């Protein structure tokens, strides 16, 4: 499943997502392209009741996760019960509808 | 008045169980008493609604004009099965909501007018006029439309209403239904109120619906008018 392209610094090994032209730790400019791998741990989350324009689904849960290989990302959490540190697995689904098109992003389900 | 002719012109009245008054604690800590009023309150209510006809902002003029007509029509026995709830703080009128029973199973929500801004009076009273038919009048669904974008966003989406085909009798946008099911699912989140109302507060509210002067009413709705400097 193709999701996002994350980056590992070829010099110091720091894993980054989203990308930067220079490593956040050592300023090196060469990176290995990697993909988020493994289960995702929920670092924090919120339940959105007041909706932004363009989204009509109340109670959308958004969280930040850390994948097993160090990639951190935000995504929609689809779970009945949510807790800090919860183990989730990533899917790649439409998360928003912009200008007539589905936009894909991370959706996390209980592992 | 020719009573025979009058009897023909008056709609039949469906008996309605009364709405038990309740007390809501607002963000300021103030208590709002929400209670049902009968026709005798209408002349006072009309005095409060009248100034809104001059306020185009947020569609106060449209809502005010229609509410005025509905209350007057109800007062003169020309609207079928209308009911009206008011919110009072320290006896002063804070807001009015009205609806009417359409059938034994359906109620049509008419209008919501808030005279105090920033305290969610409209939201509280709207919830009360859903609570009344669905919990006390054996109604199965309330049909709702909205005239202002704030109303639409707040109610259609906050409650998760079901869209329906057809025209709301107000002739505006398509309408939505709040079913008993959806109402009960959302009740804890959207409906506040403590019963019974402390007797002294209820007495104060029932004794008199206090109304402010027209320019004060306009000022409260439109906000502070003069510059500070």
């Amino acid at each position: 499943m193709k999701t996002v392209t994350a980056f590992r610094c070829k010099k110091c090994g720091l894993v980054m997502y989203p990308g930067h032209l220079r490593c956040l730790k050592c300023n090196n400019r060469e990176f290995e392209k990697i993909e988020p791998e493994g289960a995702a741990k929920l670092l924090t989350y919120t339940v959105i009741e007041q909706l932004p324009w363009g989204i009509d689904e109340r109670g959308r849960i958004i969280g930040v996760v850390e994948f097993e290989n160090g990639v951190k990302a935000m995504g929609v959490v689809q779970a009945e019960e949510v807790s800090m540190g919860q183990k989730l697995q990533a899917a790649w689904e439409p998360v928003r509808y912009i200008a007539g098109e589905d936009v894909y992003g991370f959706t996390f389900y209980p592992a | 008045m020719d009573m025979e002719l009058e009897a023909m012109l008056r709609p039949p009245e469906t008996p309605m169980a009364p709405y038990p008054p309740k007390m809501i604690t607002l963000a300021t800590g103030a208590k709002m008493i929400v209670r049902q009023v009968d026709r005798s309150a209408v002349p006072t209510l009309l005095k409060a609604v009248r100034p809104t006809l001059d306020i185009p902002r947020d569609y106060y003029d449209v809502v005010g004009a229609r509410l005025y007509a509905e209350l007057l029509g109800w007062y003169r026995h020309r609207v079928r099965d209308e009911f009206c709830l008011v919110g009072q703080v320290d006896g002063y009128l804070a807001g009015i909501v009205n609806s009417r029973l359409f059938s034994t199973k359906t109620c049509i929500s008419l209008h919501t007018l808030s005279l105090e801004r920033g305290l969610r009076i409209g939201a509280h009273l709207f919830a009360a006029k859903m609570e009344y038919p669905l919990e006390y009048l054996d109604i199965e669904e309330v049909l709702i439309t909205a005239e202002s974008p704030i109303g639409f966003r707040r109610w259609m989406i906050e409650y998760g209403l079901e869209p329906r085909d057809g025209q709301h009798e107000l002739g505006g946008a398509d309408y939505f239904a709040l079913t008993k099911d959806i109402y009960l699912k959302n009740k804890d989140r959207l409906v506040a109120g403590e019963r019974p109302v402390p007797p002294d507060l209820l007495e104060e509210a029932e004794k008199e619906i206090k109304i402010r002067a027209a320019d004060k009413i306009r000022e409260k709705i439109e906000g502070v008018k003069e510059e500070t400097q």
Partner: protein
Amino acid sequence: MKAVYAAGVGMTRFGRRDEVSLVDMMADVGLQAIDDAGLGEQPVDMVYVGNMASGLFNHQVSVASALVDRLNLMPAAADRVENGPASGGSAIKNGFLAVASGYADVVLVVGGEKMREVIGPKATDVVACMTHMEAEYVYGVTLPAMAGMFTRLYMEKYGVTREHLSMVAVKNHKNGTLNPYAHIQMEISLFGIYGHPQSHVTNPVVADPIHLYDCCPVSDGAAAVLLVSEEMAKKLDAKPVLVAGVGQATDTHTLQERAEPTDLKAVRIASEKAFDLAGIKPKDIDVAELHDAFTILEIAESEHAGFFKKGEGAKALVEGKTQIGGSLPINPSGGLKARGHPVGATGVAQAVELVWQLRGEAGDRQVKKAKNGFSLNFGGFGNNVVSLVLRRV
């Protein structure tokens, strides 16, 4: 660097201002600042306008150019400065640098925003455009959602509670009623928004655990400060206040890439820089205007700026230290919560409040004998922060 003084200030009521255009609001306060300084016929060399999104809210760009025309300040140099909700702070920083470098003698800084020309959810969306498009925005994240995620971490780490957050709101609403320019003129009660068993209906969740009364309102408004050189300050019949320190720092764009998500690094670094330049320490500050777009931020910033130890901001609040009569009054103006938050105006409005406090002109909300004031303007979600230290001389 040369000394820089705030010689004049201007302010308009924050709130819903349907009756006036963005440029007119800014022109009004700009003229107030010029008159307050007694500038008379002296020319203004440069104009900086802090404004985040006039193009999106008001369908108008190049507002600095429009302002110069409206006030007949030509041929002054003029730029619009954008740094999200810290646009005002950045505009002041730019004005400060122009005078401190010796390039300009008189710089007018105006912050302004007219957010209520679009409806609520649209305004929320415009503000959400600050987030990372691919990694954050697409998920429907809003600034309240960012605050929600940050607050949850802060609560877990430092034991901050919803009651603490509500206490910030109650304090700032109270202060707002003492400020005739504040958007919200209404005291709220802790019981009404938090203690009452049904307070979750009156004070509903926006982005859990952030509730309605934890969020600042959406406002229109403008504020202005006239910055001058020492020579000019001596010439003018004004009560100048020294801009003693300015600091700015940035952090990662996305929340997930912060080294430690509860660590507001940019707040810390920007504040240290401002204190450094001013030659004083946090304990020397008598009054502070912090950026409480969300109540959690007042608590977190009070720690990261150096006023209280990490994790002890809530304690200071509970002990009353941050009330107007306390040892470190925070947001005597009502803060963003009650004064309002027209995003581009806020950083300048904070400076205006400090000038009034330091001059002894803050009326019922006066902090006694205030000599050193501090303000913090929080851009993005803490990834671009500007701090100021002002001093009565």
